[in-house]
């Protein structure tokens, strides 16, 4: 009997001793660039937040957003990793996992403009890769663009259309001028 226990000990030791690290990819995915596209009829305006060397190092370059007052724009947002060559477009990954992501636009002051979502995930919650921005009267302030990552907690989906769950994958303030 005792011998059997011993054999069991030894065997179990060998079985568990192989470290399985195949499934892990030691790769840091990085958003370096946020691209905003505002379309009104034939007019297309693009603004970027760019930090190609990632956190720290060179300071990011941020475009100032200039839009016309009391005008409706169709807005699309894309996320890129430009630290790699060629640059990688992470927008597809966000849209593939749209039920875990939420883009939020916040104008400050809020009179600068109103954002409405025009896309939905599988659960009917907004995603924010596409939407409309209706500007108000002339003024200036900031436009905050956040990409909230809201992955399931203990296998349970947490995205509810609100900002609270999860954490920021991106959080950027653009200066905005409404003329």
């Amino acid at each position, binding site marked *: 009997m005792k011998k059997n226990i011993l054999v069991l000990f030894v065997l179990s030791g060998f079985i568990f001793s192989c*470290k399985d690290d195949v499934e892990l990819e030691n790769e840091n995915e990085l958003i370096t660039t946020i691209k905003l596209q505002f379309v009104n009829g034939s007019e297309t305006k693009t603004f970027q937040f760019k930090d190609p060397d990632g956190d720290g190092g060179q300071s990011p370059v941020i475009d100032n957003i200039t839009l016309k007052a009391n005008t409706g724009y169709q807005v699309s947002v894309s996320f890129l990793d430009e630290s790699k060559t060629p640059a990688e477009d992470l927008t597809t990954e966000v849209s593939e996992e749209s039920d875990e992501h939420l883009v939020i636009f916040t104008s400050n002051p809020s009179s600068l403009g109103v954002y409405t979502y025009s896309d939905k995930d599988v659960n009917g919650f907004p995603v924010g890769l596409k939407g409309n921005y209706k500007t108000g009267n002339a003024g200036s302030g900031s436009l905050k663009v956040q990409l909230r990552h809201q992955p399931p907690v*203990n296998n349970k989906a947490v995205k509810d259309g609100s900002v609270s769950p999860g954490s920021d994958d991106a959080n950027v303030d653009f200066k905005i001028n409404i003329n």
Partner: protein
Amino acid sequence: MLQKGFISFFIFVLISIGTPAIILAQKVNCGCFVSGKIKDSHTGEAVSGALVEIKSERKAVFSDNNGDYRIDNLCEGKYLISVKILGFEEKTQTINLNHEYHWEVALDESEIHLGELNIVARKVETINSGLKTISAEIINQKSGETFGEIIKTISGVTVLNTGSNIVKPVIHGLHSNRILTINNGIKHEAQQWGNEHAPEIDPFLAKKITVIKGASSVRYGPEAIGGVILVEPADLIHREKIKTEINQFSMSNGWQNGLSAIAEGSLHKIKDLNWRIQISGKKGGDISTPEYKLANTGVQEFNFSLAGKYTIKKFDNELFFSQFNSKIAIFAGAHIGNLTDLAAAINRSKPLEIYTPDKFSYFIDRPFQDIQHNLLKIKSSIALKNGQNLTITFGNQYNFRSEVDALRGDKSTAQIFKISTQSLESIYKHKPIFGKINGIVGLNTSLQTNLTTGELKRPVKSSVLIPNFQSKNLGVFLTERYVKPNIEWEGGVRLDSRFMNVYYVKRGENLVNTDKFNNFRLSASSSINKIINPNFKIGYNVATAWKPPVVSELFSDGVHHGAATYEIGDKNLVSEKSLDNSVTLEFDSKKYQFESQFYINFINDYIFLAPTGNGVLTIRGAFPEFKYTQTDAILKGIDLSNRLNIINNLSIENHLSILWADDRVRNQPLIFIPANRSMTNLTWKLPSNIFLDEIKLSHQFIAKQRRLPAKSVFDQVENPEFKLIGGDYAQAPAAYQLFDIYLSKHFILKNKTRLNAGFEIKNLTNTVYRDYLNRFRYFSADQGINFIFRTNLTL
């Protein structure tokens, strides 16, 4: 030598076949004598006070200070002679006495069970009076708790937590790379620098944990500024029968269950080959605070070890292998993207509902840590004549750590660290000088390689937290000890050198940079103990220690996600140098015991992380910038222990730890220093005819840390972007008190099977609290009530 070996072989055969030796004495020449020397087979040191007895003649003597004995006035004939002393296995020998007989005895250390008391006789490692030991009994009482929680029972030792499952020991306010852990004789080498990296040690294997409070670089090498923790399994001794020990625990909080099994024995086909096999595992799920559960706070562990010891003549050879595996979930609500998330989390009195589920789960989701630590040890020691001894220990360690984050896409992205360390220690114990001065000379060498990207000298990425590096360490030391009946002195010197090459790619470049860091330093120590009277002992230690800057302090450059800080290292940091003084007073009487340690540790060029007042803008928002810098620090403190036996079997003890840690340059307190605390235990040992053996009521009081830095460490930035409270995001939490109760009973079953059962309730009052040194205090309260049932079975 050969003869001695032959005699011990003869004794072995006698004992192992269990020859009944009943010998009749014949009365002829009655002027005969037996004499000899008694030694510790392991260390070769003389054993004094051993009882040498010839029962049939009712004659007995004790061995003297040199281990010598002599029994006179014996008649010629055959006798059975025995030698015994507590802590060693008894030896017997049948002798044929004809005028005189010389019997040299080498005793083997043993564990002796006296009821439930476990006494292990051992050689003294050091006389440093800051040394405190945790016995197997206490370790068993705490089975299932983390290594850090177990050693917290010593006054002056506290912990640094990241949630409940990641617990790091703190000695006299110092932690991480400022304390060393010696696991089974090998310096534990992993990624100690991180606050969220707990020591990869299986407490189930430990039979004794010793903590040396205070600087101890001379014997253990650089980095031992705060102290040393020695973790030892039981010695491998000869066993007639296989000894099996099974430990089990179940906890209501997190429904954590664990099991450990140890089997040890001796092979009888090969003489003097002793072995041990041990496995342990545990699994726990979501932890509960008094008011809510915490999502993703489970833990899984699986560990095993194999050990063998083979003694041939004067050679002791040991082989040991252990593997530690753990997977630790990181509380989902503590995963933050930026400072806005952190500020929102701090302002909530309770984490968001999605992070405090009603349903319990064992599931470990991202983010989590996945860790493996392997240790191989080969040790040989040779007992030479005149008490000399040479020991060579080789160690090989491999530490794998992956920190898996919740990131976008279907990829499990992770930071992976692989660190391997080879070490060789040679220790020579010289023969006593004038029979009074004992000492050792030692040589330590080690080679450590850390790999985070590409190959060692060809790193491919600049975005790693810790760059690739290789360090070569060399140390030589000498310690001497002088012992007289009422006074002991110990002193030593050591010279160390560390050569470290760091290979990294600069941001936005492809070129590999190599930076070299060379450090040399001398350390010295001296301890003196004076026994004033049998009840009262006084001791004084003075020691220097040092720590070269760690790679994280030199090279950090990035966001530390757990802490929401942008951390920047400084390649121009120099070694920390410490001068530690401590006075100990011990009073010991039957009714009352008192122990105290007063210490003052000056650390020049103390390295720490401080906010600059600037912010670093990243795509996830702005983070406060923290830089590593140096100052001259002073840590002063008092550890006080009082124990009073109120009446028979009822005793009360109190441990008090008080610490002041200051930046001497800026005249302000240092940050993240444990708050003052008091621990009181009321223990009642009941008579054996009652259904319980022991009831213990414990109370802990942890004060609020009011000593926080107010001034900025760096030149004051105009209009700082981040306003911090004493260098921190949140106020230090309020003081709190905890009550625990522990009940135990032991049973002796048939065939000498012993069963110890313990029942404990921790945080009896289900108090809501947050601890200053728990990194998760920003996000959630600490653990609530926990019912624990433990059994320990020995057969």
